[in-house]
């Protein structure tokens, strides 16, 4: 019954169709709040993925370890609430570039952590963020090329246990500062290129919900940034949809190729419909 109520609430979300399918798939495996007591293994994580991938990608072929995309995360994550993950795109192997990257965490109650759209000619080859991981799990990056091919890389993370729960550490602070943003601009490593690095930070509790309150058995309401767009000179660099498993205070660091001197603009929308906007001048990047 609780599941039912939960699903109808999720359906109110713009991404409901995708989520609902995924949650249903995962729900049947888990009975939600981690009723699976045995530790997940590479094999059990893989089984979840096999059941899940049709819901997300239909029957499209997925090329594994082709080198187009690479994913890195610590083998043993120290803090289940903040697991750093790096995704690399090899533009030499995909001359037309990448359209999107989907980040999947098999064992999380909603395994699709986020989908990133990459701007054409934005030159993004590296994206790092931080995610919540509920248990031992594969983290997967599935890149879609401009030509429509799917390429996947995966890495197994042992992230569980102890008292480092995937929850907000300082709830009062998180609510008081929600919506604040910070942008760091790192100059190009090589003076002749225009490739620089940005780091966007957004204050938000980014609660994934999906945990059942052990006291009331109700699900804790989800509250997270579900849409994000970052552009420069009105050209999209990176946008995100989903974001349910992105850590508290969402944090994205990526490289990109600036076009002219136009400012950097950011818009974020959370599951409550709150909109957060900000812009910054592009710092001189050895033009």
């Amino acid at each position, binding site marked *: 019954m609780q599941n039912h109520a939960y699903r109808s609430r999720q359906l109110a979300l713009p991404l409901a169709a995708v989520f609902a399918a995924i949650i249903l798939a995962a729900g049947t495996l888990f009975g939600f*709040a*981690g*009723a*699976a*007591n*045995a*530790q997940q293994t590479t094999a059990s994580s893989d089984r979840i993925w096999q059941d899940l991938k049709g819901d997300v990608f239909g029957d499209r072929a997925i090329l594994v370890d082709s080198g187009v995309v690479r994913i*890195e995360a*610590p083998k043993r994550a*120290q*803090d289940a609430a*903040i697991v*750093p993950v*790096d995704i690399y795109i090899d533009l030499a192997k995909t001359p037309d570039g990448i359209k999107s990257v989907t980040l999947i965490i098999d064992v999380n109650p909603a395994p699709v952590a986020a989908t990133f759209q990459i701007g054409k000619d934005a030159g993004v080859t590296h994206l*790092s963020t*931080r995610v919540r991981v*509920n*248990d031992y799990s594969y983290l997967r990056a599935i890149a879609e090329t401009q030509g429509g091919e799917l390429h996947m890389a995966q890495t197994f993370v042992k992230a*569980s*246990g*102890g*008292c*480092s*729960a*995937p*929850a*907000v*550490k*300082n*709830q*009062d*602070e998180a609510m008081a*500062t929600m919506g*604040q943003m*910070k942008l*760091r601009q*790192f100059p190009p490593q090589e003076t002749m290129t225009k490739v620089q690095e940005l780091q966007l*930070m957004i*204050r938000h509790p980014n*609660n994934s919900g999906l*945990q*059942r*309150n*052990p*006291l*009331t058995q109700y699900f*804790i309401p989800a509250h997270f940034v579900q849409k994000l767009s970052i552009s420069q000179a009105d050209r999209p660099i990176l946008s995100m949809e989903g974001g349910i498993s992105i*850590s*508290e*205070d969402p*944090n994205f*660091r990526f490289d990109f190729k600036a076009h002219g001197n136009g400012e950097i603009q950011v818009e974020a929308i959370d599951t409550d419909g709150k909109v957060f906007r900000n812009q910054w001048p592009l710092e001189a990047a050895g033009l």
Partner: protein
Amino acid sequence: MPIDRVRRKLVSGFACTAVSAAMLPCCLGRAALAAAGGVEFKVRNVADGVFALQGVDELMSAANQGAISNLGVVVGTDAVAVIDSGGSLIEANALLAAIGKITAMPVRYLINTHMHPDHIFGNAAFQEIGATIVGHHNLPRALEARGAFYLQSFRQQIGDALMKGVEIIPPTLLVDDRLQLDLGGRMLELRAWKAAHTDNDLTVFDSATRTLFAGDLVFVGSLPTLDGSLLGWLRQMDALATIGAARVVPGHGPVPADWPEALTAERRYFEVLARDIRKAIADGMPLSEAVKTAGASERGKWRLFDEYNERNATAAFAELEWE
């Protein structure tokens, strides 16, 4: 939920041993012993009417029965207060049995110093005997967000047997800022802190003996773990140090410890960690790189350093990036 059979057996078993202990004050100078599941729990006398059970400096495991944190007992002329319930029902019931050897007074209060499993997994044993559970006003919220995860992840870590009967039971008497509990002949002063070790830290001060139960705001010898706010912890350390205690029962480490000297090493560790992380952030180093070396000069000075330092560094990085 039906009470688990093992627990019932333990409770009744201990009830028998408690009968002989009604002649109390004579026992006050002595340590009380209780054994459960092959682990001996030694409750030692810390000051007049004040007792503590010292946990081992390990991660919770089936072998140590979850008994890794320090638990406290304060005996008044009317009632007893217990500080933290331990990491399993077995530990909690062993503590209750030991208290039964010390005094016939009822355990009226269980005070939870914060949300972590090694401090709250024994709560059901105290609810069972009708004790009022007391905690920080943020504790129910914190347990809501983490309870299901704790029950799942610790089942993996310590096993089904030790998890039997463990429930997440929130406090019903909440401390907004300060609260006094009268045990008869002595007052306990409870104080709710701003985010530090967690965002629900509570300390307990026994004014009669000037004994401070610091919960996990104080770690001695065993590496402090950060699950709240590094800056909040450092900021409040001065206020903590001004508490006029004669001794402290830290959340982890030797019982009792000198006060306020017990804070010295912990403060140094967090200052080193903050310095290293701030430098990494200024240098543009990503989190995944920075946490590999931050705080490294403290290795060898703490037990459980390799178990927790990188995790602390991760949390510290995410927090200090916003300075």
